[in-house]
């Protein structure tokens, strides 16, 4: 493609400016995190004497090992269960076409439009009544349910395109619907299941409002939820707050760099389908 030279450089400059806009905030908090705790440095200034110890202090004060364990616990409790039950539902609605499939699909799709803040108050009272308020279960159960509209819709989109002959052959051999599902259809659905798993893991890790409302103890929350509490404690100590934020960002950034292709693809497909 031939493009005029002026336009070429104007376009490239625009790109570089936008990348700077994206990256500078990260550099700023990194430099700030290295200033002595309790001081108020400038936004972008390399410290005379970098205080790497701030990361250790933040690690200990934020009880980072507990936070990591809690976040991993919640992801492990939410994602596999949500994957299994949404895949089963998508299979029944998309491939088995059970009676009432259309109504069921509409019911799930309806949930896609509901903002979570809209029904958080009844969830709070429900969990108090169930006696799970302020436990990790208080985050896990509603999260699984919250993912259902998207997850079922996503898996149904896969199963609706699967030809029925695949099951027909095995059915003749006497396999039950349950066998067919696990031995044939789940292995064939690996790609959409993996993308959905990535999406739900990121959403769980980043969940904030749910943690804020349903769990008072920050060490029982997810990373993002704990970060909110951390901010409350260190509002006046900017370097430590920045150090804590970086520690909480590192796992996400590492995972993103490692799996960027899959993550970008999954998030885009998620938006297009949702």
């Amino acid at each position, binding site marked *: 493609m031939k493009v005029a030279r002026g336009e070429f450089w104007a376009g490239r400059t625009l790109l570089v400016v936008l990348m700077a806009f994206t990256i500078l905030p990260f550099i*700023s908090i990194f430099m700030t995190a290295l200033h002595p705790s309790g001081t108020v440095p400038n936004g972008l200034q390399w410290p005379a004497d970098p205080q790497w110890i701030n990361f250790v202090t933040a690690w200990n004060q934020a009880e980072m090992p507990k936070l990591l364990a809690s976040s991993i616990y919640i992801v492990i409790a939410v994602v596999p269960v949500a994957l299994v*039950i949404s895949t089963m539902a998508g299979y029944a609605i998309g491939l088995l076409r059970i009676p009432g499939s259309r109504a069921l699909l509409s019911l799930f799709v309806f949930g896609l439009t509901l*903002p979570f803040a809209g029904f958080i108050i009844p969830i709070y009272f429900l969990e108090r009544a169930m006696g799970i308020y302020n436990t990790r279960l208080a985050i896990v159960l509603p999260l699984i349910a919250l993912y259902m509209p998207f997850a079922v819709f996503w898996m149904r989109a896969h199963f609706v395109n699967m030809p029925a002959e695949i099951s027909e052959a095995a059915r003749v051999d006497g396999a039950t619907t349950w066998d067919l599902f696990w031995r044939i259809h789940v292995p064939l659905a690996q790609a959409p299941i993996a993308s959905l798993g990535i999406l739900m893991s990121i959403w769980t890790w980043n969940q904030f409002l749910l943690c804020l409302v349903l769990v008072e103890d920050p060490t029982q929350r997810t990373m993002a939820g704990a970060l909110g509490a951390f901010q409350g404690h260190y509002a006046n100590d900017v370097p430590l707050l920045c150090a804590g934020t970086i520690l909480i960002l590192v796992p996400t950034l590492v995972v993103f760099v490692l799996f960027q292709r899959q993550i970008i693809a999954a998030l885009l497909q998620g938006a297009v389908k949702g």
Partner: protein
Amino acid sequence: MTIPTPTQTTVTPDNRHRAADAFRRIFRPRKIRREGLVGWLFVLPALLMYVVFVIVPFLSTIQYSFFKWNGVSPAVWVGLKNYATIFQAPNLIGTVVNAFWLVVWFSFIPVGLGLVVASVIHRVATGRLGSVSRTVLFLPQVIPLVAAGIIWGWLLALPGLVNQILKTFGLGALARAWLGDFDTALPAVGVVGIWVLLGFCIVLLLTGVSKVDPALYESARIDGAGWFREFVAVTIPLLRYEIGVCLTVTVVAALAAFDIIWVTTAGGPGSSTSVPGVQIYILGFTQRAIGPASALAVMLMALVVLVIIPIQYLTKEIKQ
């Protein structure tokens, strides 16, 4: 969202299973009934979770919105009084106005700018710079919104990076605590939204641009169209579906915003950045005014549906 409707009548590999379905329905009624039953067992766990933690709370919100209740003492039926309260209190109905202002920042700017950048990347940076910029610009989309809020809370503070840059360019007179100023707090929060959502829009629109038949761009260029003509005549019309998706995602992000605002301003100063999500939290969990909080929640949910439906309708039209 597109839900295919089974209208074809010819048997193609795509709809052969539908024919098989029909066959089974006619000739083996007993079998299908049993399969239906087993099928419902497959849906049951997902349905149960969804009904208990989404549908029932959704209905409860509507119910609560007609009562005066503090969460402890018995609830008293008050009819539509909670809705009247919301419309009469400037700080409550103002949250809806603010939400619409946020749409400009969270949605119109990222989608508009995203379109320009996507077409620029497509034209001048197809190589290494293009793929690097894709990754970099996408970065804010994967970090927690809370972290984005904390980062920008510091950047926009009085000694923060934004004011430092202004001073370097001799614009020190403009420096201020951006999030603490009644005039600038909402645009400042809006900039955080741009930072988070711009990359997402660019990358999504870029996939749309790359699907456009290159011959169209070729012929536009042969006709002597410059970047702008090509942008208006080729890129925008052919990307209407992707634009619709971007608009849907970002408009919902604006109307249902909570994390970024809670962390940066908590709705302040005054209620200049307060949005429905934040106000529902304050009413419901700090002031224990469950009735008005639920009424506002119902309004928020209705608002999202009302705004999304036209966008969805437009994108669907285009696909057919």
